[in-house]
């Protein structure tokens, strides 16, 4: 069973990539590489994609082309928002404790 509350880093990066625009697997990989300089392996990428699809956070768009793009669902968007808010709380607290704020 997919644990909806838990996010691994690749899943979060994939959701953020799809929040911008619909992308197919390799395009997601390239976006993550260009944006964060993180090279996701194909096994890691599709492991995360399968989990996200099972959780209902992303879905594939039917296409005539060989490469099928993925899109963020409403549930995925809500979940990403929630995750980012949690990350913001953590960074704000960390910054305060470090005296940066």
């Amino acid at each position, binding site marked *: 069973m997919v644990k909806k509350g838990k996010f691994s880093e690749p899943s979060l990066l994939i959701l953020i990539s799809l929040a911008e625009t619909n992308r197919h697997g390799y395009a997601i990989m390239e976006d993550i590489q260009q944006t964060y300089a993180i090279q996701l392996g*194909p096994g890691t990428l*599709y492991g995360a994609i399968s989990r996200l699809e099972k959780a209902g956070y992303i879905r594939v768009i039917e296409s005539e082309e060989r490469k099928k793009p993925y899109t963020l669902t409403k549930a995925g968007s809500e979940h990403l928002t929630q995750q980012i808010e949690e990350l913001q709380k953590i960074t704000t607290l960390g910054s305060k404790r470090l005296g940066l704020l």
Partner: protein
Amino acid sequence: MKRLIYLYPKPWRERYGEELEQVVEHTGLSSKIIIDLLLGIFDAWHVELSERTICGIRLDRLFVLMSMFNVFVLLQLLSLREVILLEQIALIIAMLSFLLAVCVLLVNVFKLGITKGLSLNTKLGKLSMAFMGSYALFFVSFLVLAN
């Protein structure tokens, strides 16, 4: 590359196999990618087995229990310093045969359902029986050598 992708569980392969192949065509098949794919295969099987149960027991847990049982037997054997090498080899082969027999049988049951999966008319059913035969043979050899 296709051989590696073939190691993924069938439902997973049918859904993502082609896409994964396309991505690997772009990235190439370096040692890093091979390791990543092997970890992905392990992960996909873990997810696949954790979603299936037998008599209410999750399959991944069942495999862990079986592996622990095998490790326990092997550790017991290794601690017996007086046991000669030949006996150890016989027991190791017997345990591996048993593990493979159960794994092949479970795969067959998942592929074809309980009734067909347990019959000997299928290739995997016959293979499982062959491993069980090997288990029986080597376990008897172990007992004879040990006594």
